Structures are given as C-alpha cells and as structure tokens.
C-alpha cells in the first residue's frame, strides 16, 4: 500500500474539463470509464438477448417431439445463442471491465488510444445489428452452429452466410483494436513504480489475453473469408470436389477456437485473483506462480486444438500428442485453483456477494475442468463427442466460469463505478437462485450426454424426457434469476443505496480503491 500512495501523490481527482452531456457524450466518448460502461451495458443487453434464444431452445426441448419451433429455426437458435453469448456477452463484458479497471489499476489517465477505443466499441452494435437482422429475413439466420463447419456453412447454408461473415469481420476488428489498446496501455502507461511484477493479476491476465486475441482473431477472419469465397466466389478451400478438404476447416477453425476458449477464461482468473484476497483478508498466495501459470495456459492453448476433432480419423500419434498436451493444461490450472484455496486458508473470510460468486466459480469451474479432462481422453471422447456431455462441460466453464466471474466482478466494482453499495439482500437472492438453478440446468446434461443424447437436435429419444423437462425448468429458473441481477444493477445505477466509501471493501488493496467512489470522470491526470 505504501508504494501505491507514493505513486499517487497529488495526481488524481482533478477535473480538467466538464463532462459532455446528452447522446454525444456516448457517441463521441473517448473516456475509458464511459466506454467501459457502454461495453458492460451492451454485454448485459446481449446476455438477455442470447438468453432468450436459450429459452427458446429449452422450451422446445421441454418435451420430446417437435413442439414449438421448426427444426431449422431451432438450429438458428443454437447458432445465434452461441455467437451472441461468446462475441456479444462474455467478450465485451471482459473488455468493458478492462476499460474501466485497467487504467485505474495501473495509474493511467486513460487508455492509450482513446479514439480507437471509441471505434472498437461502436463496431460491436453494428456487427450485431447485421447478425441479428438475418433472423428477420427470408430463410432466416445462420443455422450451422456457432462453429460454422464447412460444408454446413458453405454448400448447405443460405445467404445469411454473407451477413454472418461480415459481422464476424467487424467483431474481429473490434476485438483486435480493443486488444491493441490494452497492450499499449499496459506497456506504456503504467504509473512510475508500477513494475511488471507489481501489476494486479487482473492486468496480467488481460495482457496475456490481449496477445491471444491479436494472434487468433486474424485466423478467424481468414477462416470466415475462406467460407465466403467458397460460397460465393468459386474457390474450394473446403470442398473436396475442387481439391479442398472439409477437415481442414476444422483444423483452421479450432486453431482459432481453442485459444478463444482461454480468451474467455483468463480474465476470469484475474477477477477471482482480485476478489478472493479481498474477502479472505490475505494477500494472494503464489503471485509469481499465478503469472507463470497464466502464460503457460496461453502457450499450451496453441498446441491442443485437435482435441476437438478426435473422431475425424487422425493418426494415433497425433491423437496421443493432442491428448497429452490437453491434459497438461490441468497442471497450470490446478496451480491456480490451489493458490486460491491457499489464499483462503486461515484467512479472516467474510461472504459478501462478490465472494460468494467467486467461491461458486472456483468449485463449479473445477467441475467443468474435470469434465474437460474426461473429454481429453481419446477412447472416452469417442463416446462423448457431440453429446450433451460436451454441452454440460462448456457451460460449466463458460456460465459458472466466465459468466459467474463477470457477475462477481460487477458486484465487486459496482460501488466504485456508481458510488453506492448495491442491495446486498437482493444480491444474495440472486446468488442462491442462480447457484441452485444453474446446477439444475447443467448438471443433468452430463447424464443425458453419457446416455447418448446428441446436441443441436430439436427432438430426442423418449427415455431422455424426464431429465430434459428437469433441465428446462432449471433453465427457466436460471433465466428468471438474472432479472434480479438486472434489478440490482439498475438500482445501483440509479444511485439508490448506501453511499460507498473510497475503500469500499475492508480488505481491498490496489490503486483503484484509493480513488473516491464513484471514481471521478478523470483520474491520474498529470498536471499539464
């Protein structure tokens, strides 16, 4: 703390120019806090839109047989649900948290390239208007699954492919610009004394995530470009008729897709590493090993992609290579989980809402990690491939993992953003409703998956009907529980609540907690 105070001496809280008013404040904003807020509000809106698609899926699967929607529309729902949640909810929410918190954590006046920051946000709504508009067009939206495997996305898709490809290009440009901004901010704008190994872990994990984004988003752009030219311009990258190979699509896609998985979880590790020490009132155990573990996970993420493709008929040597590298990821991830547990060990713990979500994250994300290990085993994977077991696995890591960390982060930093404490009682209700319903929703998916229920199909064999009704009820409850969250956020944004102190949490450490709550519009400005 003492060196933090030195860094700060006489450098914050001064308001150099008035805050612009009206819509132009948001349209032309170059302020990292405003842009962060826009990212977070956008992500919340997309979370509810993507969630409503999931409700359609669960309503259709409530009973066997075709009930509510046509199979093609069902496929559009699974596709768009995935795309909206990944590119519209989880990733923008993390970028929003980065925008808000990184400059405050490292003592920077703003992001390094504020105008590019504005641009990278405003591309997002444009991209999603393009993508979602296809649902209202003749033939409907993309229905090939969010993984858009060729030839589903080339030979067997409708013209929504062109919209999809252009939307993904915009999303890619937005992510890349956001990532560059984050890297440049962290490299160039750290306050004097904020050395690399003093960076809060959220900053470290985001730095590594940003490098992953820069490395793989261009590969995604290349993949969708090949899909576009295969469909409209007569190339045959993925068509055997012209000398191409559809299996190559999967290689290129998952070369992007696997690092993408870590893009959605590394910032979550950073969030949990900020929250657990605060409420355990102990410094983070094993800071250096956390940084090394994050970097190792990022490196390993590039050499495991083919574990998504064990059933495509790879040679045994390649399958074994990808199996072992995948299992190796459990080591740095285990280091993290044990470090969090060691941080809590003999700590003076209290259980405010951010901590409860962080604890749920640690337990439930680990369950998702274990099912991932099961999927990594080649002989077992042949049974699990494309079943609900896979759906259960990635929802444990993405919903109770990434999403729970974002919710935890929101509760944790909301007093710093709004200046008022959120409603603790409503927050507790939100937590318990979410925790119970999310497990009703996703845990039985392991069982139906092991019993052979395939994913992405609107109908199922009769023996799965009991579990599916149960899963759907869990899904509806989980969806409804998030309305409590919406209410908590709206209430805090309307400044209804107890005034928050600068420190907010008794055990909180770091530069952001030395600033007043709400954080002033301009912070850490040098006296120029």
């Amino acid at each position, binding site marked *: 703390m003492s060196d933090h105070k030195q860094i700060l001496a006489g450098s914050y809280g001064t308001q150099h120019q008035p805050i612009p008013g009206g819509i132009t404040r948001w349209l032309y904003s170059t302020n990292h806090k405003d842009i962060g807020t826009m990212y977070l509000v956008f992500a919340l809106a997309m979370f509810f839109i993507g969630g409503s698609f999931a409700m359609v899926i669960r309503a259709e699967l409530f009973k066997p047989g075709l009930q509510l929607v046509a199979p093609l529309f069902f496929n559009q729902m699974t596709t768009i649900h995935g795309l909206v949640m990944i590119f519209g909810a989880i990733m923008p929410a993390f970028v929003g948290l980065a925008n808000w918190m990184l400059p405050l954590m490292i003592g920077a006046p703003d992001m*390094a*390239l504020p105008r590019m920051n504005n641009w990278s946000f405003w591309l997002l709504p444009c991209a999603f208007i393009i993508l979602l508009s296809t649902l209202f067009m003749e033939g409907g939206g993309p229905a090939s699954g969010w993984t858009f495997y060729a030839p589903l996305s080339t030979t067997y898709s409708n013209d929504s492919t062109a919209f999809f490809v252009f939307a993904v290009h915009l999303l890619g440009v937005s992510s*890349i610009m956001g990532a*560059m901004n984050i*890297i*440049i901010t962290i*490299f*160039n704008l750290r306050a004097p004394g904020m050395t690399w190994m003093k960076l809060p872990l959220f900053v470290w994990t985001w730095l590594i995530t940003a490098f992953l984004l*820069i*490395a*793989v*988003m*261009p*590969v995604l*752009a*290349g*993949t969708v470009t*090949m899909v576009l030219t295969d469909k409209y311009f007569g190339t045959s*990258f993925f068509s*055997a*008729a012209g000398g191409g*190979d559809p*299996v*190559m699509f999967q*290689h*290129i896609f998952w*070369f*992007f897709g696997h690092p993408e998985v870590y893009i959605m979880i590394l910032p979550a590790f950073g969030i949990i590493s900020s929250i657990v020490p605060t409420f355990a009132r102990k410094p983070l155990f094993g800071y250096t090993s956390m940084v090394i573990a994050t970097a190792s996970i990022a490196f390993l993420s590039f050499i495991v992609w083919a574990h998504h493709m064990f059933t495509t*008929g*790879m*040679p045994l040597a*390649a399958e074994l290579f990808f199996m072992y590298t995948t299992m190796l990821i459990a080591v740095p991830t285990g280091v993290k989980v044990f470090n969090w547990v060691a941080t809590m060990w003999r700590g003076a713990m209290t259980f405010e809402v951010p901590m409860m979500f962080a604890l749920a994250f640690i337990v439930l994300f680990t369950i998702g990690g274990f099912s991932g290990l099961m999927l990594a085993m080649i002989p077992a994977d042949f049974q699990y491939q494309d079943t609900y077991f896979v759906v259960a696995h990635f929802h444990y890591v993405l919903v109770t993992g990434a999403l729970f960390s974002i919710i935890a982060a929101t509760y944790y930093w909301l007093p710093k953003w709004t200046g008022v404490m959120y409603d603790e009682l409503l927050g507790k209700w939100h937590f318990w409703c979410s925790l119970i319903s999310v497990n009703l929703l996703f845990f039985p998916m392991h069982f139906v998956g092991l019993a052979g229920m395939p994913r992405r199909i609107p109908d199922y064999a009769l023996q799965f009907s009991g579990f599916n009704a149960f899963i759907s009820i869990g899904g509806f409850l989980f969806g409804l529980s998030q309305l409590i969250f919406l209410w908590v956020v709206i209430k805090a944004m309307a400044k209804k609540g107890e005034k928050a102190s600068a420190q907010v949490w008794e055990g909180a450490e770091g530069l952001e907690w030395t600033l007043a709550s709400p954080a002033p519009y301009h912070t850490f400005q040098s006296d120029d």
Partner: protein
Amino acid sequence: MAQHKTLLRRLLVICALMFAFSFALVPLYSVFCKLTGINGKTSTNVAGAAAGIDSVREIKVEFLAKADHSIPWSFAPEVSQIRLHPGEVNVVNFRVENMTDEAMVGQAVPSVSPGEAAQYFKKMECFCFTRQPLQARESKLMRLQFYIDPALPKTFQTLTLSYTLFRINEQ
C-alpha cells in the same frame, strides 16, 4: 505518443502475419498430408511395376463408389471386394452410366481408408487420372489397374478404396 505508435505498428504487423498464416495453413495442410499420407489421398502419378510379390500375406481390398449429388450418374464397382497378395497386379472395372438427357463430364476423386495406408496403394492405370465425358444416357466401363506395395505395414489387413464422382463444369 511516439512510443504508442511504434508498439501499435508492431502489433499490426503481428495481426497481418497471423491473417496471412491462416491462408498459409491451406498449402501447409496439403503438404503435411502428402508427406505423411494421413488424409487418404492416393498419389496421382502412374505407378511403375511392383518390386516383387509377397505371397505369404493376403490383403482384402474393398471398393466403394458414390456419385456426388451434383451429378446424377449411376456409379458402382463390378466387384465389391477382392483378396490379393501385395505386389500382385489386379484389374477392377467400375460401371458408370449417365442417367440424364444431357452430356456431362465427371471426375472421380479417390480416398483410401485407413489413411496411413494410402501411400501403399499403387495405381498403374486409373480412370480417376482423367476427366470422364459421357453423352446423354451413355454408359461405359472404367478401368482401374493397381497393386498393393509389398512394403505395406503388417498392421493393415483390409484397405477400402472409395471413389466419389464429381461433376466438372467445362467452359
């Protein structure tokens, strides 16, 4: 600001290189597959005579033929499977018939399963080396002359040769 620009330029170069890399994966993938022979693609070169006959082993070779939906031809091998010694030259004919009232050109693309054995499947003559034009309602026999390389590892007892017939649009 100047240091921002230097770093930004470097990051942009990484982006451009990664975009180029995604396209470079296409030739890399086919080179890798050709070197290792793992995606079942057989050589498109005419093979010379076999080094000798391994009369101890007998290999089962199965034949599959399928016309792509783009070309409404009937397409089938005359025998569905044969047993032969490695090195022994064999001929199998495939019957093809244009079921439509217009002239079309087709080309068969072979694939061998298991993929690792593809490089040991030697073709001395194959209809898949050339385009096959057929008049309306015309039918013909197409010839495949091949042998299995005696160097085929002992683990393989059955090979499946599968042809998919694609339509070629001739300008």
